[in-house]
């Protein structure tokens, strides 16, 4: 598809136009951090940022979601799914790691085996306009886990910031349609983009030399000694999972409003937390941080690979930046990879 040039001054009008058909979700500044929010005006959008603290997956998989409401009367019990009264989402300015997380979440929530109606109804018709990572952070490692700072995965269109303008790389028909009125990119622009991509990729050293080997080590390493030490500093909080673009576990709760009505909701859950695998009997097969850290690593770097042939990690580095005790997932996987 033809690559185009969009002057930065055109972004505002473009967003305003998109707002007519979509609920546009873009990075804005909130409480000192940048986060993806539904925008009221193009002026709020901040496109000079490394990445957001909170993840855009919540657009499709919110931290809390009411599954159904029930009410009981003499004529019987009525169960209703709350309608989703919103236009389809358009996410603007999503980094390639986060856009890729949507593809991974699709594998989990929208497969032949399982269709998650709550996820699918938010995801259906959604569009994603990505923003290439020209200066990855020191915590970024997307290239280790199959991504890249200029990757298209999960996007309709990728924008590359060339200074005063963006080079737009359409990925889908929608992306092409959106950019059809813009001028074509010149060879010099494309060369500049290629150089930027090369530089960005070069910033990120591979964390693990052989990923297949990591998967194989984990295949046989469930009872390995390395788990005995890796978890020691973990304080068992859910920072890594709640700020993770690919973690997708949830728990289901009931809330009663009165004797005759209430609702069921699902909330994000985390394998780091004590309730996660607690059985009704009181037995917990993952009683300490050792088993919980192991579960998180196994899920991302082994089970997910078995199920979907991809790593369940996009290398965004949020868990590395935000872990309160600096339990660095890069360190964990590289230690496992070199273990004997």
């Amino acid at each position, binding site marked *: 598809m033809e690559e185009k040039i969009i002057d930065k001054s055109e972004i505002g009008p473009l967003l305003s136009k998109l707002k007519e058909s979509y609920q546009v979700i873009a990075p804005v500044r909130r409480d000192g951090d940048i986060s993806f929010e539904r925008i009221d005006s193009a002026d709020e959008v901040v496109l000079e940022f*490394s990445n957001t603290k909170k993840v855009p997956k919540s657009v499709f998989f919110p931290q809390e979601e009411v599954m159904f409401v029930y009410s009981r009367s003499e004529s019987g019990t009525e169960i209703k799914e709350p309608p989703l009264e919103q236009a389809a989402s358009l996410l603007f300015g999503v980094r390639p790691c986060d856009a890729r997380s949507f593809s991974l979440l699709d594998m989990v929530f929208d497969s032949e085996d399982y269709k998650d109606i709550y996820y699918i109804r938010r995801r259906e018709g959604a569009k994603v306009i990505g923003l290439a990572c020209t200066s990855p952070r020191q915590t970024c490692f997307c290239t280790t886990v199959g991504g890249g700072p200029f990757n298209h995965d999960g996007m309709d269109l990728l924008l590359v910031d060339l200074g005063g303008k963006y080079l737009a790389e359409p990925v889908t028909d929608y992306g092409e349609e959106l950019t059809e009125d813009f001028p074509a990119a010149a060879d010099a622009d494309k060369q500049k983009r290629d150089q930027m991509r090369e530089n960005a990729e070069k910033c990120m050293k591979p964390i693990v030399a052989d990923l297949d080997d990591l998967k194989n080590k984990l295949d046989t390493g469930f009872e390995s000694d390395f788990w005995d030490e890796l978890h020691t*500093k973990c*304080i068992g909080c*859910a920072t890594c999972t709640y700020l993770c673009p690919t973690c997708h576990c949830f728990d289901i709760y009931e809330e009663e409003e009165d004797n005759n009505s209430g609702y069921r909701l699902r909330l994000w859950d985390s394998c780091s937390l004590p309730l996660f695998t607690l059985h009704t009997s009181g037995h917990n097969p993952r009683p300490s941080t050792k088993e919980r850290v192991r579960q998180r690593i196994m899920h991302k770097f082994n089970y997910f690979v078995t199920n979907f042939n991809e790593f369940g990690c996009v290398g965004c580095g949020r868990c590395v930046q935000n872990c*309160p005790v600096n339990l660095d997932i890069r360190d964990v996987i590289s230690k496992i990879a070199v273990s004997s």
Partner: protein
Amino acid sequence: MEDQLRDIAVKLFKDGSVDLIIGYEAGTLPLRAAPCVIKSAEEADRLVWNMNCGSNLATYLLPVAEANPEKKLGILAKGCDSRSIVGLIKERQIERERIFVIGVSCSGILDRRKLDNALNGAEILEAQFNGDKLTLKCENVETRHAVSVHVADYIHSSCSTCQHKTPVLHDILIGEPDVEADVNVYEHVEALESQSADERWEYFVSEMSKCIRCYACRGACPFCYCNECFVDQNQPQWFGKTNELSDTMIFHLVRAFHVAGRCVNCGACARACPMGVDLMSLTKKIEKDMNELYGYIAGMDIEELAPFTTFEEDDPQEFIVEPD
């Protein structure tokens, strides 16, 4: 001080005083130190001590003790860690005889969030302490630059109001005893107290709204050692677990009350919070109340009885409301 710490660690392993030491090691990012457990003299070189050692190591005492039965535990403790250890001994969670406290005199922990805010999102690539200055090599999406800041401007609020920087309990002390700072410890709390209830409500609403229910505050706290936290009790489910304000507010309030008279205001919860929720306004207010109502400061003396485990005839009772 770091060399001294490592020498002491080697000696303690060699003379059999400890089987392991809970300390800090260098982090994987600038301005980070990570808690660690070392198990031999050969590992002593891993230990570090600096202004990034913000976790409260007392938090690790109980899980490490449980995972290493019969072992003698060494633990590095700054002032607040030592007061937490005193609390844990008082609450009979650990025996005094089982631990060897390597006290370290602390000059305060760096407030990384404050620094990040001042740098406006620029990423810190390298950091170097030079006396009272901190030199940072930073990069943001547009520029790469060096910045020099005064360390004193970025000391965590738990430390700038700390009156007990020298460990109250130690078997060996590294560094000189610190002189207590002549500051109004409760300046911030008094400012909040002077506000109207509505203003305070608005403030706490805006803070608690940031909470993502990750429980990092609980995980970082040496006194959140309950086998089953109230918020995890689900038969029945007493507390809602959503991010709705009423749920987050009740979690933080109950937690703050639960550590009343035990919390030493180490600030580890606030530093652990990924969202920067101001938890210390709550904990500091409770510390002030405990001091004013009971003349009690937590974690100072193993023998002293805790106010909530004793009853005196002249205990204040003004808060007891007569039923209508």
